[in-house]
């Protein structure tokens, strides 16, 4: 039986336990992978919390994602699922259409959106122009860059939407019928029957969303790279494209990548990763401990 668990036990120690212990060790050193680690004590942490000009921005951006992207995706997916549940015809076709973008590889989807939202040559601003609206600069504007990423994120809610749809369709009919007898209108039915019944699934989606927000990297990296025009960087001198424009897309994992794999300050990057570990752990702990309070137990209505 130990044999059954052995692959995972080995994997866990090598790819999970060991790195975390090692990361703490490396975070107390200056290490650039060329010379042996040099002990610096808490210097990395001191730089992290007081001197790094970009850490504050990176933390704020990541928190923005948790506060804006996650609820937006959950609410949007829920809204579409509810509408689909009500629809009588064409549900299969609609479901496929809404699910398909979730399959698109993140790199491809981001590339597509950077082009579509190009303020000068993209179709979206061209369309808005025809309607007489002067479109924003999307990925070129620090105020609009994160909302553009949110729009990209909303395009890909197919996964969550399908789960919500299944859960909504699973709500026992008799609950609706007794609510109807009690004279409840659609909003009351939604608030007191549907939502409580699917609350475990909503919690699941929120947890998943928060976890993804804390590791958000690919879309930010690709969007910043392409939008800054540094994609043709082979001959280009400046590599200041991460976080383009003006650090508005500089999320914590992106900053970690920059310090660890662009500047090769592995000691400092380890310090950043230790902080991320602590924060993620606390966040998941908070959610798990409170899940009982937020989730309505199946069976008890109202």
């Amino acid at each position, binding site marked *: 039986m130990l044999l059954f668990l052995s692959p995972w036990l080995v994997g866990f120690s090598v790819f999970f336990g060991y790195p975390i212990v090692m990361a703490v060790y490396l975070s107390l050193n200056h290490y650039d992978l060329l010379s042996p680690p040099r002990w610096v004590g808490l210097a990395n942490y001191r730089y992290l919390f007081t001197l790094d000009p970009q850490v504050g921005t990176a933390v704020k951006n990541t928190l923005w994602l948790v506060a804006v992207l996650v609820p937006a995706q959950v609410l949007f997916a829920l809204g579409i699922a509810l509408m689909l549940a009500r629809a009588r015809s064409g549900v299969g076709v609609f479901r496929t259409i809404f699910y398909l973008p979730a399959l698109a590889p993140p790199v491809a989807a981001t590339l597509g959106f950077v082009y579509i939202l190009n303020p000068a040559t993209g179709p979206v601003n061209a369309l808005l122009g025809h309607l007489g609206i002067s479109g924003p600069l999307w990925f070129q504007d620090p105020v609009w860059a994160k909302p553009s990423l949110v729009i990209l994120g909303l395009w890909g809610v197919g996964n969550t939407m399908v789960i919500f749809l299944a859960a909504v369709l699973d709500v026992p009919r008799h609950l609706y019928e007794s609510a109807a007898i009690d004279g409840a209108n659609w909003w009351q039915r939604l608030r007191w029957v549907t939502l409580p019944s699917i609350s475990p699934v909503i919690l699941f989606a929120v947890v998943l969303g928060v976890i993804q927000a804390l590791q958000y990297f690919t879309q930010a990296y690709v969007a910043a790279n392409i939008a800054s025009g540094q994609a043709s960087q082979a001959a280009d001198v400046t590599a200041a494209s991460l976080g383009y424009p003006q650090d508005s897309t500089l999320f914590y994992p992106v900053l970690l*990548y920059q310090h660890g794999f662009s500047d090769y300050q592995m000691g400092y990057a380890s310090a950043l990763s230790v902080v991320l570990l602590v924060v993620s752990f606390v966040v998941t702990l908070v959610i798990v401990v409170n899940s009982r309070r937020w989730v309505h137990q199946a069976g008890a209505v109202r």
Partner: protein
Amino acid sequence: MSAVPVTAPIVRRRLPASVRRKRFLLAVANHSFLIAAAIAFIAPFIFITLTALMTNEQALSARFWPHPFAWHNFVDVFRTAPLGRWTFNTLEYSVLGTLGLLLSSIPVAYALARLRFRGRNVMFMIVLVALMLPPQVSVVPLYVMWAKLHLVGTLWPVIIPNWFGDAFSIFLLRQFFLTIPEEYLDAARVDGLGELRVLSTVVVRLAKPAIAAVALFSFLYTFNDFFLPLLYTGENPHHWPLQIGLSQFRSLHQVQWNLTMAATLLVMAPVIVIFFLAQKAFVEGVTLTGVKG
């Protein structure tokens, strides 16, 4: 008032016209929203396709419709970038990774679901915790380790961890294994089969849909993976998988948007094709993740 016999047919009253009309209007509004949303969801695909068929100058202007249709863009893409090489690398990662993942995750999930041992629940909690922590947490020391092993620049650092089980797949499979009635397993055990044989003959056959879903998800995940391959093969174009190559596409010979969009479409296509071929497995797998408990 006379009592209505229980067996009498239930008479459905016709609802008043106002209620019927209101419900009809609501249904129309609902449908309209859905149609509008569907158009919004499809629009990006259409824009990308149209741009992929434009000439370079048209892609740089605010035109909607290509004129003429540059079908040869799709051929030019192959001439500009080594898509074949990239595809081979992606397949290497996906196939080797998925196989290893299945071989290692199934026994672990089974042990967590069915075998009784002390600390089983603790272990499951640890699996869940491992699922929730960002990969960036462990990435620096692991990179150092792979660098010392001289494997940075290849895809092995992303393939090999899959051979030791994957928390998400273990979770999914465990959920499914829990639903297998104990009787089937007991029947096999009574027949004298050891646990390994029970697993490989009875359980796997029963769990085919779940395993197919896990394999599909794993393939999809490895196909779309970007961060770890970027880290390990970013500086070695020979080993770039499709996603890395696509992200660097524009820096190859300063290629323009039209070819980039064509390449984007080509990279999106396999996943969408696989979806249509294996729809059932997809939907089942997705709902499996939402299974309560």
